[in-house]
């Protein structure tokens, strides 16, 4: 059970990295090189508020997930790990 969860999270993380690089136009960033715990906003990847709302659209289009409350965004969007976990939890419901 734990294995299949980890397997699924791995798939989500991979897809997420590819989506972020292509849809946020992250030039010169190679998806596989993004660390799972890399901070996405400000530090790390250096994303900003416009990227945050773009990620909301990406989640909706690609995972069918609505982020209704942007005030939660900071926690959910902290890293690839937190994002992947959020997707995993909410997809299962």
């Amino acid at each position, binding site marked *: 059970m734990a294995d299949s969860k980890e397997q699924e999270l791995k798939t989500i993380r991979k897809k997420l990295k590819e989506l972020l690089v292509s*849809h*946020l*136009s*992250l*030039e010169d960033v190679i998806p596989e090189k993004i660390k799972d715990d890399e901070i996405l906003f400000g530090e790390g990847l250096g994303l900003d508020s*416009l990227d945050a*709302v*773009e990620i909301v*659209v990406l989640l*909706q*289009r690609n995972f069918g997930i609505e982020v209704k409350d942007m005030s939660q965004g900071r926690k959910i969007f902290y890293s690839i790990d937190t994002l992947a976990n959020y997707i995993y939890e909410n997809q299962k419901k």
Partner: protein
Amino acid sequence: MYIAGIGIVFNRGRGLVNLEKALIEGWVKPAPAYQVPAETITDKQVLKEARRADNLTKMATIAAFDALMDSGIPEQSKEKLGVILTTAFGPHVTTFGFLDDILTYGDAGVSPTLFSHSVHNAAASYIALNLQSRGPTLTMTQFADSFHQAIILAESWLKEKRCEYILVGSADQIGKVMEYICSRKLKPALDGKIKPFNCAKEPESIPGEGSTFFLVADNEKYNKYGSISAMPSNNKKNDPDLYILDSDGMCGDERLYSRLAKNKGLFTSYAPIFGSMLTLSSFSCAAGALMLKNQKLYACPIKENPHNFNILTKNETLSVHKIKCLRYNCYQEELIIQLEMKNF
């Protein structure tokens, strides 16, 4: 006001070196439109804050940057630097991309990045961001009058001392939908030749794209390419040595141009170099300013001349002081921008 620097991005490259090269070479068959090659707008240094920017913004940001660099105005002047960008159609490729989103994903599934880049002033904002200029920054649109109006405003701002220097320029782009619209509304030049001196009722056109910027200032010490004005006096004494006509087929009926054939002075048109654009006059002014600086004239790229204009037939070194860039807009109103280099 004086032109201290010029930046240009067009179908044959970036910068005045490529402009001069293109003017010397003359007409080259466009393939099939006058599109700016992708590699012309990939400067990572200049575009480092512009990862999300569309091609219109990239062209404008590079042209504005180059004009500032060319001018040599002091670095600490950025509080006093204004930006005026004019565009006939704005970032329509991004706008249609946003409409794609609406149609594909519905009202609630659209990209905020596309939306925010679909507004006309996105490019000017990127220019200000890139140059860290905090002065007045304005975007305007007036179809064929766009560049003319921008020059008027730049002159007004400098006289008021609203800023000390202004980057004033134009940017327009080609896109699939706009090319389709042009093909429906205008007569395409199937042989690849825009014919500026045909003065045709239904003139032929080929869409072009690009951006040109001028760094202008009132202070004569920045006089590198002569002066520029969209409010020249209209008396006879003010006849120019050279006319550059913007008869590029974009405004329909061009028969009115034929009345100019009797005027003294030489005639040329560089529409066949740049392509048809409502903001062509900014490109014509760049060519004109370069000629004033170099004291060289570049031949008409297309020499068909049924109305016997006194056209420039070859590249030559010739003293030239005053140039008028002239366009009749869709309402047959005459728009003139005058370039002048006094001290020779």
